[in-house]
């Protein structure tokens, strides 16, 4: 694995240098050839990624964000702002639009692709008003009987004075309770980082998916390492034992599906990633909208009801 990575890096550097030369047909050909080799190597590496590789891909600044997916797969999108109580939280984007034939309410956590955007979006870390905006839009979706689609990409809910003053815990808890009984289909999935209660607050759904190179966890590997071993530098080790990858969580039944990403990660071919995402969401909506509401809510309850592992002595 290490030498594959070294070769990918070396080839990338070669391509970089070649593309700075005056372009001739020979050079163009060589670049194409090298890119093909890199593609093959990355494809091979993809099957060998360890959890920490996935953490790094999930956090790449150039990774396509929820806003990109809205632009690519939602038509007639109208953004709706604010929680009607305090302010508009820009870490969460919500609105109405169409995905294929389905009119949906779409609610996403949005990080930025630049430092400036990230500051504007608070790195995708919502405050209570973000969760309350999400809940307002979910209840609105229920009123108009349209399905809800949530895209999750957050290191976690924001930790700060204002967030605590305005009831971060209550805001997340309320979403969990209301999503559990919302009378419309909900499809939720992780498109980057799925961090703690901040992710779950958009994740109580009928279908839960993860893109192939994303993570979903009780908290960040750094946080985990610092709580358990008082050393956040052991994050890589923590990632290894936390069971945070799509494959692990599919095995545990926490998620239903893995949505494939382009070779090397969604950032390599964002439109291809968007198409796969769209295809998946549409297929789930086609199924879920056929279910009667009572069965839908009942099944959602049972889904979350079964999570947990414990031991009971036989009486």
């Amino acid at each position, binding site marked *: 694995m290490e030498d594959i990575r070294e070769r990918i890096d070396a080839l990338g550097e070669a391509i970089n240098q070649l593309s700075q030369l005056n372009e001739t047909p020979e050079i163009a050909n060589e670049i194409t050839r090298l890119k093909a080799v890199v593609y093959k190597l990355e494809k091979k590496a993809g099957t060998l990624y360890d959890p920490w590789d996935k953490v790094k891909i999930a956090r790449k600044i150039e990774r396509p964000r929820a806003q990109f997916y809205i632009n690519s797969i939602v038509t007639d999108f109208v953004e709706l702002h604010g929680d009607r109580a305090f302010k508009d939280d820009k870490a969460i984007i919500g609105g109405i639009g169409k995905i294929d034939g389905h009119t949906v309410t779409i609610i996403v956590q949005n990080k930025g692709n630049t430092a400036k955007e990230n500051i504007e979006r608070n790195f995708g870390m919502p405050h209570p008003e973000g969760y309350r905006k999400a809940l307002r839009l979910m209840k609105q979706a229920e009123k108009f009987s349209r399905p809800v689609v949530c895209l999750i990409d957050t290191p976690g809910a924001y930790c700060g004075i204002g967030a605590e003053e305005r009831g971060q815990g209550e805001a997340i808890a309320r979403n969990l309770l209301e999503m559990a009984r919302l009378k419309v289909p909900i499809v939720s999935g992780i498109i980057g980082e799925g961090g*703690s209660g901040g992710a779950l*607050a958009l994740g109580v759904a009928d279908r839960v998916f993860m893109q192939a190179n994303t993570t979903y966890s009780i908290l960040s590997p750094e946080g985990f390492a610092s709580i358990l071993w008082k050393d956040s530098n052991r994050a890589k080790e923590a990632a290894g034992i936390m069971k945070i990858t799509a494959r692990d969580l599919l095995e545990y039944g926490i998620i239903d599906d893995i949505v494939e990403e382009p070779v090397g990660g969604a950032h390599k071919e964002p439109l291809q990633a968007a198409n796969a995402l769209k295809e998946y969401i549409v297929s789930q909506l086609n199924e879920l909208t056929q279910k009667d509401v009572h069965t839908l809510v009942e099944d959602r309850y049972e889904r979350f009801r079964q999570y947990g592992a414990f031991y009971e002595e036989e009486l």
Partner: protein
Amino acid sequence: MLNDLIKGAKKYATTNPAAKKAGIPEGMYLQCPKCKKSIYKVDLKAQLGVCPHCSYYYPLSPRARIFAIVDKGSFNELDKEMMSVNPLDFPDYEKKLVNYIDKTDQKEAVITGTALIDGQETVIGVMDSRFMMGSMGSVVGEKLTRAIEYATSKKLPVIIFTASGGARMQEGIFSLMQMAKTSAALARHDENGLLYISVLTDPTTGGVTASFAMLGDIILAEPGALIGFAGPRVIEQTIKQKLPEGFQRAEFLLDHGMIDAIVKRPDMRETLACLLKLHQKEGK
């Protein structure tokens, strides 16, 4: 192998339960951690773990709490044999569990059951901050969910005393899912028009705050209890400044409109009895 470990632990867990029951350290006198004055232990017990000099609240063990709240002899424990397993094969988790089982004489961080409070039947859950910091793993989530479901089926109110440092890290994603599970059970209880009172005690943080703790129809808290989503240390690290005095204490939450009332420990039983009475359905 795992079951053997836990079964093995039970032998030790029952050696000397009487001395540990009140959650108060052993010896005749002890020093109050807040005012540093010495307290006669018998006094402390009589005062339900409240320092007679400065009103500091010692953590109460769940059994002492239940004893102080419910009608004598009315408590019927549910699911008392349930114990944790190690779903992620987390290193040393079993060993840790065994340690806490031994230390607290509890099998997990919550006790649930049915009881009468001034003659009124209720379902009650009490968390134990001494058991792995009251962290919520599968057992805490499952026992509370079963208790809430039982209340829903029998049309009973639910009272939960929370005390938790947050998620049970060793159970990873399973711990996170307990937040959804308990909240979903409360949604059904709520839809049946039934009363849920949460009582927040020191400390209530993390995943417990972001689920059942903050979902009470009525939310009460003990004086001075630390209540928040993020712990104060995490916030200080994030914002790189010291937090103001009293931040995230029960009085702060009351001031910010996040809880209904602060109730002193000696008044808790009476307050709960009164609230239950006020919610009795006509003709019942």
